[in-house]
């Protein structure tokens, strides 16, 4: 089996890439991916006025009827928060907004005047009420949810799994550089270039690894940055302070059983700073961490950087 050339297109404010091991499976796999992307966008976009999440954010304090998809995405976000001790917290929406990330990132001004705001700990994921049986959710007044990272990863997992089940082919879905693989992998696995920015061409020289199943995600502070009053900000906020995480790792790549788990762990690792390698190793999560000065550290069986094997 040989992985065919990827299909690449913009989606969810980032880039979607789809690879399949059988050319005949591409059309059906693309249809599945489009369905998942559309459903995720309608349910969980923070930047669409007509999304279910926007309605929930506008209805703080009230129970709001939500679809099965948003119930699942909220559940995934709550799981991520629980599994990271609250580090990956969906209640950072308001903090992101006041720091200037209040629209899709392509429309965020790269520079601007100082923001005069009072920042502090975010409300916290335990303030969210979720009622799966009745299909409804409630958040306290003043709280705004951002499901960005976990929703994207869940979309990749679901699309890859559904497409593989439907076609019988191996499928790899990348959403903004967060990858989910399902079905039979090509010989040698799915080769993945590792970079600061997911938009870097895979042909660019640099480290690469191969995965055969599950997920691989990279979180970093080198992209999705903006400045206010000369202060450089990024989108990975420390829930304890409501401010961007202190600099320690430029990027962290993690492999896990799913894209959601990989994304959850890589985001948490950025926020954990120097404690991240131990935290990842304790969970048996293979990871590659690149410090701000470029030094690389690997844990839990992640291969050392080396010369290309092709």
């Amino acid at each position, binding site marked *: 089996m040989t992985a065919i050339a990827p299909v690449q297109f913009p989606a969810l404010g980032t880039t979607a890439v789809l690879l399949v091991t059988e050319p005949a499976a591409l059309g059906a796999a693309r249809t599945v991916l489009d369905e998942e992307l559309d459903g995720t966008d309608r349910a969980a976009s923070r930047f669409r006025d007509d999304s279910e999440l926007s309605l929930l954010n506008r209805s703080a304090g009230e129970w709001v009827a939500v679809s099965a998809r948003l119930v699942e995405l909220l559940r995934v976000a709550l799981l991520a928060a629980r599994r990271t001790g609250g580090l990956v917290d969906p209640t950072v929406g308001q903090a992101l907004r006041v720091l200037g990330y209040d629209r899709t990132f392509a429309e965020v001004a790269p520079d601007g005047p100082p923001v005069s705001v009072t920042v502090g700990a975010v409300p916290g994921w335990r303030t969210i009420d979720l009622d799966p049986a009745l299909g409804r959710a409630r958040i306290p007044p003043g709280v705004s949810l951002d499901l960005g990272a976990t929703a994207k990863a869940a979309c990749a997992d679901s699309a890859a799994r559904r497409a593989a089940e439907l076609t019988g082919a191996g499928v790899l879905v990348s959403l903004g*550089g967060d990858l989910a693989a399902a079905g039979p992998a090509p010989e040698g696995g799915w080769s993945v270039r590792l970079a600061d920015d997911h938009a870097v061409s895979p042909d660019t020289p640099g480290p690469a690894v191969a995965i055969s199943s599950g997920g691989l995600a990279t979180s970093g502070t080198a992209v999705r940055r903006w400045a206010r009053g000369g202060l450089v900000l990024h989108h990975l906020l420390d829930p304890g302070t409501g401010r961007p995480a202190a600099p320690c790792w430029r990027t962290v790549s993690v492999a896990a059983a*799913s894209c959601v788990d990989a994304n959850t762990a890589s985001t948490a690792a950025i926020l954990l700073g120097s404690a991240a390698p131990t935290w990842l190793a304790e969970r048996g999560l293979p990871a590659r961490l690149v410090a701000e000065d470029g030094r690389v550290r690997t844990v839990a069986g992640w291969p050392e950087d080396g010369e290309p094997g092709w």
Partner: protein
Amino acid sequence: MMTTASQRDDGLLRVKSATRWLAAAAVAAAAAFSITAAKVVPGKSHAPTSTSVNTPDPNAVNDPNSPYYQDPGLQAPNQPPMRAYNPPRVSSGGS
């Protein structure tokens, strides 16, 4: 003999009375405990299946927000990433 029988009957009456008082006291104590417990750990008023941080449901083992949730935690991959032997077709990086 009459005195002994009378003393026995009086004793039985006292035991019977004490038993009644003990039973009544037990019922009263159970009621008081129930009222206190209901105030300290109030039940749910919005729906029997809903989940709230203030009303933990022991049956909510599938609700991540419940203290009773049985969480397997973050799952490691079947195998760690391998060295790549094919040219990459996709990149992973910050987004």
